[in-house]
């Protein structure tokens, strides 16, 4: 079997990582360059996925299948639909940027760094393309270790605590998911006689509602809720973000958190529709709590990175809100918001990282009046902050707007509370920006700051282009997801045997 495009995109980074193992440790530039080349090649390979993607179809595309452990019903089954397409592209887009951002920041053990980053990329893409529960779980767990190493080796002062906390939190969630996967496998096998981990096959089966379905849903949901992180499972996130190196934070915020929301979309909704509907109100409530709580806590953070980290809790709340509205606008908005958050928050982390490289501090109080010293940096920082707070014309607005439209149809009160999250976002981001960029230069050290270097321009420019593109013409990104989302809603409705919108509005 010749490997298809999706396999190439998935495993090219890992193959590159293995090849880079052979490069001598001292050739740091070669290692960095090689890794960047591999990541860019993976991105280049992933662009045809978008171009050749048939937006009108809700089926999985670029599907590849090969028997892996046929006797156990485990296959290498990969494919993408409108949801995973965007997330794969987001991954291949952000990885080279994260690698480039570490060009100067990571000077210790460069070889290990680039290898770990590329392995991480394969793990993340693998999670998004897997159409077999076993394969998915392999990628899901395997990608924990590179992230753990990334935080623990190149992180800040409290890195070991943060790394171990990250792993333990995520593991507790995912091991329970493993039991649920096995339970689903045997339930499906007992009911239909077909023992398989194949997701499309399992998703076609209508599981009777009841305790088993509820427990399985809860096990899956816990794994994903921790990853998202949904309030109140978010406590690992600020630690992990603050301690992680910039490249790690970008990947963590940009892609890793999306694996949780993706999991809800791909597994919880189609596999356990009854339980998803039953627990929908709870998830909606937690999302809204997360939106408001994340925003409030962000407001009072003295540390830039922690501020951005808590803002993630708030933004991911919007994604979850959109998903569990279970209507077209909410879901499309939720998916788009995943991409938006990846771009905006990734960019925020990049820029905070640039400040940190220059000043070795992330405290808001240590800055002030930066506009006068580094105008280009400050201007870009403003654009990114505005995109994050949802200014019309930039990407964040479109996603949040769609989510709120969806939420309003479900419960106007809920939507109203969620809307305050946008207002608070404006508060914490603009207040932060004001303290960092406006006013007089308060610290003498800040007068000597240098503005953006060509390398930094090069890695920010594509992000800003996308931020504006999505803000002005979101259709390029929503069109591929629409058919998929429609099919997903239909699937949940028919399987649960109810009119979802009707139940939800009641």
């Amino acid at each position, binding site marked *: 079997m010749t490997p298809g495009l999706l396999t190439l995109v998935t495993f090219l980074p890992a193959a590159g990582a293995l090849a880079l193992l052979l490069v001598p440790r001292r050739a740091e530039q070669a290692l960095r360059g090689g890794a960047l080349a591999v990541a860019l090649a993976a991105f280049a390979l992933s662009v045809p996925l978008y171009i050749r993607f048939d937006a009108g179809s809700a089926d999985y595309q670029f599907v590849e299948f090969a028997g892996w452990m046929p*006797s156990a019903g485990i296959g290498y089954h990969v494919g993408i639909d409108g949801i995973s397409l965007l997330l794969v592209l987001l991954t291949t887009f952000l990885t080279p940027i994260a690698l480039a951002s570490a060009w100067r920041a990571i000077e210790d053990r460069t070889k290990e760094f680039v290898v770990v980053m590329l392995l991480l990329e394969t793990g993340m893409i693998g999670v998004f393309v897997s159409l077999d529960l076993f394969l998915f779980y392999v990628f899901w767990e*395997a990608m924990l270790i590179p992230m753990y190493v990334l935080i*623990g080796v190149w992180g800040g002062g409290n890195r070991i605590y943060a790394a171990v906390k990250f792993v333990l939190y995520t593991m507790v969630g995912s*091991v329970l998911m493993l039991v649920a996967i*096995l339970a689903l496998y045997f339930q499906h096998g007992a009911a239909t006689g077909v023992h398989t981990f194949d997701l499309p096959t399992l998703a076609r089966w209508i599981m009777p509602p009841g305790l088993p379905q509820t427990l399985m849903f809860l096990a899956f949901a816990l794994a994903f809720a921790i990853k998202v992180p949904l309030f109140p499972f978010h406590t690992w996130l600020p630690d992990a973000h603050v301690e992680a190196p910039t490249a790690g934070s970008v990947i963590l915020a940009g892609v890793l958190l999306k694996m949780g929301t993706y999991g809800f979309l791909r597994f919880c909704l189609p596999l356990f529709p009854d339980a998803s509907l039953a627990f929908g109100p709870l998830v909606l409530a937690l999302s809204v709590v997360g939106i408001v709580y994340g925003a409030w806590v962000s407001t009072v953070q003295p540390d830039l990175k922690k501020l951005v980290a808590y803002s993630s809790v708030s933004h991911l709340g919007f994604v979850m809100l959109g998903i569990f509205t279970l209507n077209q606008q909410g879901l499309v908005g939720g998916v788009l918001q995943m991409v938006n958050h990846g771009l905006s928050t990734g960019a925020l982390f990049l820029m905070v990282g640039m400040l940190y490289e220059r000043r070795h501090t992330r405290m808001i109080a240590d800055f002030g009046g930066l506009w006068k010293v580094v105008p280009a940096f400050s201007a870009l920082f403003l654009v990114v902050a505005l995109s994050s707070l949802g200014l019309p014309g930039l990407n964040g607005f479109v996603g949040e707007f769609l989510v709120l439209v969806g939420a309003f149809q479900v419960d106007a009160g809920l939507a109203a509370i969620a809307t305050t999250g946008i207002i608070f976002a404006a508060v914490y981001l603009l207040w932060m920006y004001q303290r960092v960029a406006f006013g007089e230069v308060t610290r003498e050290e800040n007068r000597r700051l240098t503005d953006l270097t060509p390398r930094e321009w090069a890695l920010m420019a594509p992000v800003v282009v996308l931020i504006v593109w999505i803000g002005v013409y979101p259709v390029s990104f929503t069109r591929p997801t629409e058919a998929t989302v429609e099919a997903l809603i239909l699937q949940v409705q028919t399987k649960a045997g109810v009119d979802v919108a009707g139940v939800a509005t009641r």
Partner: protein
Amino acid sequence: MTPVAAPPVALGALAPVLIVVGTALAILVLDLLPPRERKTHLGVVTLAGLVAALFTTIAAWGGAGRAFRDMIVLDNYALFFHIVVCYAAALVVLLSVDYLRRAGAESGEYYALVLFSTSGMLLLASANDLIVMFLAIELMSLSLYVLSGLFKRRREAGEASMKYFLLGVFASAFLLYGIALVYGATGSTNFDRLAAAVAADPRDPIAVIGLGLVLVGFGFKISSVPFHMWAPDVYEGAPTSVTAFIATGSKAAVFAALIRLVVAGLRPTQPDWTALLWALSVATMTVGNVVAIAQSNLKRMLAYSSIAHVGYMLIGVVAGGTAGASGVLFYLLAYTFTTAGTFGVITLCERAGVEAVDVRDYAGLGRRHPTLALALSLFLLSLVGIPPLAGFIGKFYLFGAAVRAGFVWLAVIAVLNSAVAAYYYLRVIVAMYMQEPAGPPAAWAPSFAGGLALAIALVGIVLLGVMPAPFADLAQAAVAPLLR
């Protein structure tokens, strides 16, 4: 009076055991011949014997030899364990060659004892009779008692050997008494006739008590809670290569007998045993994992971790059936490679001339010896159960068997346990990559044979993790005749 017919002697069914015993005897003779100061060649001879036994085993695959009035069977099930035991022994011998020379404990007896112990393990896998089973266990254990006290000058070695011996003998007494009761109740020591007798009268109290005592004896040998007290001290005091052997080979062999007796032989009384084994399994994995968290000595930590792994393997015994039994077989194969590799790395690390056994000794290893640190990381990750390594697939099959048999909560407890286990395994990785050494760093004691052993173990865990299907099928084929 009818003359007593002598049983036909069919040594073919004993071929692997005989090869190993023969090699051991040859070693004892060769030990007396020059060169007297170097013993490396004895290691080579030992290895050759083990490889020969391995090939004999592979050649015998598919047959179903029975000999000595069904006391010995050489079915696929026994052969599977022969492969595991031979691999474990071969890895241990490879690790021992340079390790023993550095420790100044190189001797001919060592190799001979390893081989005698191996022959006991092989015999145990083939045993189809309580008496043969007992003899095999004793042959294996007596050799191991001596081996664990090999470092005569170290106080811990004496403690280890003594403790292992006393508790082991105690366990043997239980075992023997149990065997006597079972014989009294059923009139036979043969597994097949035993099974038939138990099936006819599952509630016979004498037989039940007897089998319970046999189970206690097994519990000691596999170090399941509450019979695990000896394990940490023995693991710590014994030479690391011997520790690896105790952790892998002896466990595999005793599990072979346990499954043959309990899962296959006692199927009619399965419900009676299930609750007991369930509790045993949960207690074993939980105590092992929780206590391991508090250990700073790597060998003690691995002792508790191996207790925990026994708990996982007991899940397969609880679940029973082809899935459960073959799950245990696969897990043992994976566990053997992983554990032998982990201990292998320890034999290759020394700090200031002394074996590095404290977690702190491994600080900074990732910087100083990236390859060794990577190898140890992979072994530890396999113990955690991170895909795509052997340990994950092993757990997957075991937990799958549990869920299939309806023991979902057992699987839930087990997976939560493996999340706990992640903490202490990762602590070693933290030390290697994320901490700087205090004082002189641990150094890699170069050894070609040791490196080869690590390479074999590494290939093993990656192969079992990425391409598990053929090995899982092998395990299935091995238990199929047993459960017919």
